[in-house]
């Protein structure tokens, strides 16, 4: 079995944490909860974070077992397939959303003319190749570029400090807005669920758990810092700036004097988007193969067709797509992000109890 190291697992987690949060989300959230969006985000991260110990416990109980097999053993084939179908939809829409948001950013920034086919030609072969090459190959790739991406990210944050910033105004939104915002943006979270899908392919060693937590916390810290600096820089106009990471570089007078530095954000976003799409498309294909007894090629073809079709439907209806992510996708996310982990927790409890009883006997 081709396994991935805990470091590779960690870098995948960081990429998942960045997904859908570093471009559009800060401005979208600001509309409802202003600077309190940081707390909304932190609370959602906290809820996500609960998933990590559940995953670690599950991995320690079933070190080499596939997530699919665990579910099948406990819940039966039909229920497992339904859960996997929901997971398939979850990852597919995450991938689609990541692509759409980046697409709009690039269309605004660089490619003024029709860009959709160029974007698809550039992205789809790479993510298809990643799926074919497998988890180990693309996780190694992410690992290789990880520090380049993080450096790009941190440079973007650092450059924003060269413009006047002030502490954003907190505690301005009501509890209702707070909860509403939480519900709306829940789909962008659930970053640790990918680990469950590949749990049999992760090489867990002693002391590696701490490292996994470190990676997750670093990712969350960077996203929080991005939110804070973005709101501190744009204050009340934050909702007008749809590309948070790239917009942090704008108006940095000292640096603009030596040329446009947008390229740092552009390259960072390109790499992050590609890696996120690789992860989500892999997850889609993995779910697909488990649901239907078909091979990887078929899964990739289905992914490509669905992706192109749905994207074609949404061309020019970017807002519809984003709104979908805010209104009906959260229900899917609630199941994936919270109900599924609770279910896992129950399964762990039953298993532990049974083992204890067996030991007693």
């Amino acid at each position: 079995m081709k396994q991935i190291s805990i470091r590779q697992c960690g870098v995948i987690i960081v990429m998942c944490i960045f997904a859908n949060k570093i471009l559009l989300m800060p401005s979208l959230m600001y509309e409802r909860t202003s600077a309190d969006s940081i707390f909304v985000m932190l609370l959602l991260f906290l809820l996500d974070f609960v998933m990590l110990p559940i995953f670690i416990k599950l991995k320690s109980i079933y070190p080499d077992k596939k997530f699919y097999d665990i579910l099948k053993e406990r819940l039966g084939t039909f229920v497992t397939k339904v859960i996997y179908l929901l997971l398939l939809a979850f990852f597919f829409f995450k991938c689609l959303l990541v692509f759409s948001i980046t697409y709009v950013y690039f269309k605004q920034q660089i490619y003024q003319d029709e860009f959709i086919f160029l974007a698809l030609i550039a992205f789809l072969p790479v993510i298809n190749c990643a799926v074919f090459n497998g988890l180990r190959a693309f996780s190694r790739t992410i690992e290789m570029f990880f520090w380049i991406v993080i450096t790009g990210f941190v440079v973007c944050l650092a450059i924003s400090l060269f413009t006047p910033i002030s502490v954003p105004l907190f505690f301005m939104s009501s509890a209702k807005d707070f909860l509403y915002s939480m519900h709306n943006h829940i789909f962008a979270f659930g970053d640790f669920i990918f680990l469950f899908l590949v749990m049999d392919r992760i090489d867990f060693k002693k002391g590696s758990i701490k490292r996994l937590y470190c990676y997750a916390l670093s990712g969350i810290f960077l996203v929080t810092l991005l939110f804070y600096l973005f709101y501190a820089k744009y204050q009340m106009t934050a909702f007008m700036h749809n590309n948070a990471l790239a917009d942090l570089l704008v108006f940095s007078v000292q640096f603009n004097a030596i040329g446009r530095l947008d390229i740092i954000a552009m390259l960072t976003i390109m790499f992050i988007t590609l890696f996120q799409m690789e992860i989500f498309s892999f997850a889609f294909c993995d779910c697909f193969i488990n649901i239907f007894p078909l091979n990887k090629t078929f899964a990739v073809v289905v992914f490509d067709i669905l992706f192109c079709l749905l994207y074609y439907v949404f061309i020019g209806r970017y807002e519809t797509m984003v709104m979908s992510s805010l209104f009906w996708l959260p229900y899917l996310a609630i199941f994936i992000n919270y109900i599924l982990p609770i279910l896992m927790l129950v399964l762990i409890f039953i298993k532990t109890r049974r083992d204890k009883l067996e030991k007693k006997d």
Partner: protein
Amino acid sequence: MGKFNVKNKVEEVKKTLNESVDFSYRYFKRESQVIGFIFLKSIIDPQLFSSAIYFPIQSSDGELTIDLLKNDLIKCVDIKEVKEKDLVKEILDGRVILITNFSGKILSIDLLKFPTRAPTEPPTSPVIQGPREGFVEDMQTNVTLLRRRLKTPNLVMDVVRIGSQTQTKVVVTYLKDIANKKIVKEVKDKLSKIKVDGVLDSYNILFYLEKRPSSLFKQIGNTEKPDIVVSKMLEGKVAIIVDNSPIVLTVPFIFIEDLQNSNDYYTNHHYSSFVRVIRLLGLLIALIAPGFYLALQLFHYNILPLNFLITIADTTQGLPFTPFLEILFIFLLFQVLYEVSLRLPSYLGLATSVVGALILGDTGVKAGLISPPGVIIVALSKIALYTIPEEAPQITVLQLVFIVLGGSLGLIGVVSGLVYIINYLNDFDSYQTPYLAPYSPRVTQDLKDAIFIDPIYSQRYRPQSFSPQKKERV
């Protein structure tokens, strides 16, 4: 065991060897005793034959026995008894066959000698400091060069013969207490499966040893320097020496090896690290500079600093070609010049380079066919290519790919291409070793001799990427 009719046997061998022009034989007669010597005069040492074999027998007294000949009279180091069926094979290997009418035993004496060149500094890897010896075409010399450096009983040299017609000797050599047994087995298995009529050089077997022979990327290491081979063997690698080839192959191969140079180990480690960073930068410039320039010029001109943009706009105004075609044209022009200068005699090659670089480039710009920035970018990438000459063939192809990607998809194309290539390279583990180690996957221990190099005393452990049996260098 029956005795031989010497004359008949000689005639029989002569016929088997098609009465070859270099086929030779001599008889020695004393009373009823007859000794026959059969050999190929083109590949044995005739002086040694006279002084060490024929003369001692001639000057001896009394009855001759095969044991007397083997143990006392013949003054050669390598004498062995062979079976009748191996007789022709032994002759073809440059040995003298001795048959008698008083014994059924056949003696084979090593007198192999053919024109060889002395070990000189290989043109492909010159050094400023460090050993200058290089491998030659003669396998025996190459083996000697290795043996001189590895005075250990753990040095294993297994011989296999490949090629139904050439019967080329291929030596698989490794240190048995260090090299990973699985890798050794894999190499031997692959060699044993080779079915060809001839092996003329190590490159003839290279493709059989690769995991993906159709791949663009280099998967097997090669060098002409014995010190490099020995250092690789000490890391746990397996070397493959092919007779008649000065190039020795080493497996497993990882990409970082081409970034390393033997000079690095004979100079200050800070300087070596600096030079390796320059090489890496050179590789990146060579790979993506033309594609990146095209992407900026065609799609992302708004991120170029204004002064630079004005310069480009000024120089590209009125050009008959589109930027994409212009870069492609300059790229192909450079490649044609390179090929010409490579194949022509050196005096003509130099003249062609001057004509190409100065006349064509300069007049092309003055005639308004190509722009100076375009020429500079392509020239820069072509020069940077030779910071790592071993990677030049594959990078040249990839340059073209990145020109197409940058010209058609812009920066996204360049980034996608880069990720695609790294993804692809991450998928092949050649001989159980990740191709992009120690960076992908990260092997912390091996980073001591990667892009940055630590002083030799701190490299206490062998690279883990090659899974050696003995981890510590003691």
